């Protein structure tokens, strides 16, 4: 007899892979997403008809509730809030996997040791992803402080929890008459998800979200091992790999190891380094002057950062960009890998504002362009344009690949205040001879700049 259910899972997996493959270009990406969603539909239908004895009522209720909530979020979310959205979805994915494994734990059929071990792993990873994602969501949404939350003995505490989890997991696998070990495992897994996420600061969020994305895949794959289900294993592996690659790209973008991001708690107030934190004097300027500088330029590169997202200034920046182009200037956008709060954050914002994607250049593509650039406009970005990363060995961001904006003839920097960036260090770029500062909210500044450019 042909096993149609498993055959359908293979088909679904093929469609997932083809779908992701089509994400290699913005032209085909939308199509790819549709293909992947068809794969999901096939997997769901195949499961529903695989056994006539399903509890269809429960399933229908769950699906309707889930579909309404999911669709509501998907339609309502602002593009600036996309990191929160992805964070919370990671959490639901991990949570779902953990719940499935937990249901298997209560399966009256006597589980094998292998089965019990996969249940323990699945519950651990899934629960950790669930709570960790909600903390990440809270930090991005502002419910929880975006600053690292650290206290003495934190690492020690995490180590103790980790060891306890291993012990409880082992006891759960060995079985026994009590469910206490299992409940303990669930509680501690939930707890370590929280304690591992709270010490991580706002600007390190791209790494954390990528990592949680990876975990949600690992959790699904682990659940696949519990159920001996190829569909879950393949899909989980794909998502796990995706998250891992993104995590790696984000870490490289900051020149830090994953361990350093998770345990380093960068972003605390630095105890003013070597004591000779030099005061830099900056040239403050106006939008009128900025407009005049831009008028004389041929090539302009715009460097967006998290400040742009906070100010919701994506449409305002597009208007300025288009105005400059109508004045015959070449306009490009330079996107640092860790600009914003998640991988590709700036690209989505600018796409929303109708900036053509050909104008968005990543770090490697754009860095050679700054030498021939007349004006670089830095909008709410800080550490990713700090030249100290190139030469100052004592700087916490030393070695991080940066956008070489300082090589442009003139750099216009827009910031709200002189407050240092996330890494807590002053940016020497602001004091450079060729830098002018225009203070103010990015959206207000760009709107005024747009007006000034038109009035030239």
């Amino acid at each position, binding site marked *: 007899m042909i096993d149609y259910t498993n055959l359908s899972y293979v088909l679904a997996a093929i469609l997932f892979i083809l779908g992701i493959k089509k994400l290699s270009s913005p032209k085909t990406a939308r199509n790819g997403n549709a293909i*992947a969603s068809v794969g999901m539909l096939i997997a769901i239908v195949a499961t529903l008809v695989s056994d006539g004895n399903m509890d269809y009522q429960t399933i229908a209720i*769950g699906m309707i509730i889930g579909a309404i909530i999911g669709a509501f979020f998907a339609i309502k979310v602002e593009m600036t809030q996309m990191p929160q959205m992805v964070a919370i979805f990671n959490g639901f994915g991990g949570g*779902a996997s953990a719940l499935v494994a937990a249901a298997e734990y209560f399966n009256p059929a006597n589980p094998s040791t292998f089965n019990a071990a996969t249940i323990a792993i699945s519950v651990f990873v899934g629960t950790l992803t669930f709570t960790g994602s909600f903390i990440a969501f809270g930090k991005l949404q502002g419910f929880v402080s975006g600053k690292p939350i650290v206290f003495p003995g934190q690492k020690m505490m995490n180590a103790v929890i980790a060891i306890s989890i291993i012990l409880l997991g082992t006891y759960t696998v060995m079985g026994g008459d009590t469910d206490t070990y299992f409940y303990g495992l669930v509680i501690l897994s939930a707890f370590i998800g929280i304690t591992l996420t709270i010490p991580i600061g706002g600007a390190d969020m791209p790494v954390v979200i990528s990592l949680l994305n990876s975990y*949600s895949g690992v959790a699904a794959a682990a659940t696949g091992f519990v159920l001996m289900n190829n569909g879950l294993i393949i899909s989980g592996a794909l998502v796990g790999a995706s998250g891992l690659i993104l995590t790696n790209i984000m870490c490289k973008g900051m020149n830090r190891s994953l361990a350093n991001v998770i345990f380093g708690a960068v972003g605390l107030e630095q105890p003013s380094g070597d004591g000779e934190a030099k005061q830099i004097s900056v040239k403050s300027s106006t939008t009128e002057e900025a407009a005049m500088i831009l008028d004389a330029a041929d090539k302009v590169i715009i460097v967006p950062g998290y400040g742009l997202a906070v100010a919701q200034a994506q449409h305002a920046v597009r208007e300025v960009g288009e105005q400059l182009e109508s004045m015959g200037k070449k306009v490009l956008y330079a*996107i640092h890998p860790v600009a914003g709060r*998640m991988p590709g954050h700036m690209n989505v914002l600018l796409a929303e504002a109708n900036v*053509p994607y050909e104008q968005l250049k990543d770090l490697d593509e754009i860095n050679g362009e700054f030498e021939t650039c007349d004006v670089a406009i830095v909008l709410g970005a800080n550490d990713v344009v700090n030249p100290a990363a190139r030469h100052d060995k004592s700087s916490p961001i030393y070695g991080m690949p940066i956008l070489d904006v300082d090589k442009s003839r003139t750099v216009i920097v827009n910031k709200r205040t002189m407050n240092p960036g996330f890494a807590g260090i002053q940016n020497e770029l602001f004091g450079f001879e060729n830098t002018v500062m225009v203070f103010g909210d990015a959206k207000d500044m760009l709107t005024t700049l747009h007006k000034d450019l038109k009035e030239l």
Partner: protein
Amino acid sequence: MDMINIFTVFILALFVGIEIITKVPPTLHTPLMSGSNAISGIAIVGAIIATKVGGEMGTWLGLVAVIFATINCVGGFMVTDRMLKMFKRK
């Protein structure tokens, strides 16, 4: 299916994943995340099965799992589509 088979599938899928995902350009990294998020909603398959395996406790856990996984699938694919729709050329 035995353990080795299923482990082989896992490892091969990992390699396929790494191979295809490295080709996704940075500009599409956010849609990649939300899209792969939707794919991790495949846990819905397990959730559907779970509603009937674990007795009453299993049914409740399964119900919540179905809700979570459906949020992931529906929300994930929809929001990814919404984003990808915006990526335009000149």
